[in-house]
């Protein structure tokens, strides 16, 4: 892909303009899909016809996006592509005849990965990353590897954000993928936390058929891998900032990450929030940093909301947590005064 194709005109506009364009594109694709679904009912009945139509629509969108379109055509392409993708994914699932198996989800993930690579459009790439990572997460879940997914996505998110400067020719792709992965990480962690709550609250109440899907879910493994992944991302970050891992700032940062990882064993999801927050500060993106902060507060409140302990226990644990954080701050300011050289993260 040439550099001129890698960046489109909307790249330099603020996030809220992109959000507005994304919302209108999404509504337009809903209208288009509604038209295809209502107007051509027989199309949806025939797998081959709907697959071909879907691919043709995606192809048209690709051709428009490649040709440096004006604004109207650019958004038309987005809407056409979304409607086309819906048709393709519909056919994939109709053809496999077994939505609760690995294959259709894996095919969907691969399809979206191809779109991330070829579609020269920021919004399209964010959307495709989100769908690809959901499909990949479900593939892992149905393949019995659900415990791996949170750790894997933490690593992927960290890697994509930290490696932005290493692939300047794919700047737009990496940044869009970074946003998509961060959104996925937070929403997927929320689902994982939900599974754990379900596991503890209704251990006996889940019907056998539904439990079969979750039987591979091992909370301790999932949490350990997420903790390791989050420590690995912080270590990667320290290397990126050229901080020797044995020096004080790096040790403090790793200590901080270890503390969060330890708390995350009781309040899962915190690792995901921390990584999104750190990547937001690293990339100087207020949207990402804000997302990370909200995620941290959300997972913390969710833990306390579902905690089956007395309010006295909740109160005491928060007291300890608060004092530890203030003590940590005091030590941090003492050991690394602001005028001192070097930086710390975590």
């Amino acid at each position: 892909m040439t550099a001129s194709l890698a960046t489109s005109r909307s790249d330099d506009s603020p996030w809220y303009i992109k959000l507005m364009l994304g919302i209108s594109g999404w509504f337009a694709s809903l209208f288009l899909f509604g038209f295809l679904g209502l107007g051509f009912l027989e199309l949806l009945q025939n797998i081959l016809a709907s697959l071909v139509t879907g691919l043709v629509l995606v192809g048209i969108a690709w051709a428009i996006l490649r040709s440096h379109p004006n604004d109207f055509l650019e958004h038309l392409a987005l809407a056409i592509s979304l409607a086309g993708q819906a048709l393709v994914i519909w056919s994939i699932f109709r053809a496999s005849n077994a939505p609760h198996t690995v294959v259709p989800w894996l095919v969907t993930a691969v399809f979206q990965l191809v779109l991330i690579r070829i579609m020269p459009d920021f919004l399209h790439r964010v959307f495709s990353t989100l769908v690809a990572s959901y499909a990949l997460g479900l593939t892992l879940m149905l393949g019995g590897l659900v415990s791996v997914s949170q750790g894997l996505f933490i690593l992927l998110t960290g890697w994509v954000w930290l490696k932005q400067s290493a692939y300047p020719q794919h700047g737009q792709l990496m940044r869009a993928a970074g946003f998509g992965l961060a959104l996925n990480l937070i929403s997927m962690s929320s689902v994982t936390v939900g599974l754990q709550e379900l596991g503890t609250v209704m251990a006996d109440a889940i019907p056998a058929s539904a439990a079969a899907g979750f039987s591979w879910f091992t909370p301790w493994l999932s949490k350990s891998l997420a903790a390791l992944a989050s420590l690995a991302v912080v270590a990667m970050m320290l290397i990126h900032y050229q901080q020797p891992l044995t020096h004080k700032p790096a040790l403090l940062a790793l200590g901080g990450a270890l503390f969060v990882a330890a708390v995350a064993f009781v309040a899962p999801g915190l690792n995901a929030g921390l990584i999104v927050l750190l990547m937001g500060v690293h990339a100087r993106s207020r949207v990402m940093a804000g997302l990370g902060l909200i995620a941290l507060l959300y997972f913390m409140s969710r833990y306390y909301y579902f905690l089956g302990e007395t309010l006295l226990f909740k109160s005491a644990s928060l007291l300890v947590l608060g004092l530890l954080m203030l003590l940590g701050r005091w030590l941090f300011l003492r050991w690394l005064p602001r005028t001192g050289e070097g930086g710390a993260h975590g």
Partner: protein
Amino acid sequence: MTDYTLQDPAGTSAEPAMPSPRDWHVFIDRLLLAFGSLALAFSLLFFIAYNWNGFGRLAHFALVEAALVVTVGLYWWLAGRHGALHTAPRLMLLLASLLLGVLLALYGQTYQTGADSWQLFATWAGLMLPWTLLGRSNVLWLAWFALFNLTLVLYFQAFDGVFWVLADAEYGLLWVLFEFNLGALVLWEGLRGELRWLTGRWGPRILAVAAGGSITALALLNLESLLLLLIWSGWLGLTFGVYYWCIRDLFMLTGCCLAAIMVIIANIARLVLSDGDPSALVLLAVATIGLGAVSGRMLRRIHRQWQS
């Protein structure tokens, strides 16, 4: 004329400079301070809510009041040391305001005053006001506005309010939220030049989203009402004009465009979808894309124009 758009990190430029060690230092310092203090405040909240019998009524009050006094004391000390506009003293005032709510809730719980919850929140907002005035902080003011919005919502849940000037019985709450947040927005923007601490754009932006969201929701819920459409159009034109000519803020202009797209599309949908012909959906899709593209093009042109 001030240009705020340039202070906005686009969030998507290809290769931003990495933050300096000092940036990270400030970030970690504030994060630990804010989360640590918040954890302590919620620890106290849970302890009071636990309502431990071994801990008498007087002790409960003494605990909350002591925490309140300590927090206010810390504010004075920190304000004297770092200046009142430093993060730490402002955070203490925010915590003190939170503890005030705990104290009021405890009072209501202990003496079973029979007051509605809106009265609790109204009292809270009233008692918090002096600290908010003293704190000179955007966050504190936003917290206060949020509290007052909540009071209004609870009040309408209790009464289905009838006292308000423009409050149509059915949509009274939306009207009042619009009026209040618009008033707050006008005040904020008006005082911005006088009060130097009133910096940053997030305060007015949140207020504008609250006001604009309410009036747009009203317009969408009453598509047949010509009067509402006129009021909504007036609001839209005025907001766009102010943020284009007087205070340059692209976020506000984007919000106006989104509101306009929603109301226009909803009106077209009302007209064309009634006969159940699916091809009308194509018209809606094209109209949505067209409006989005025109808005995007215009906003980006303004963005470039302001940058150069």
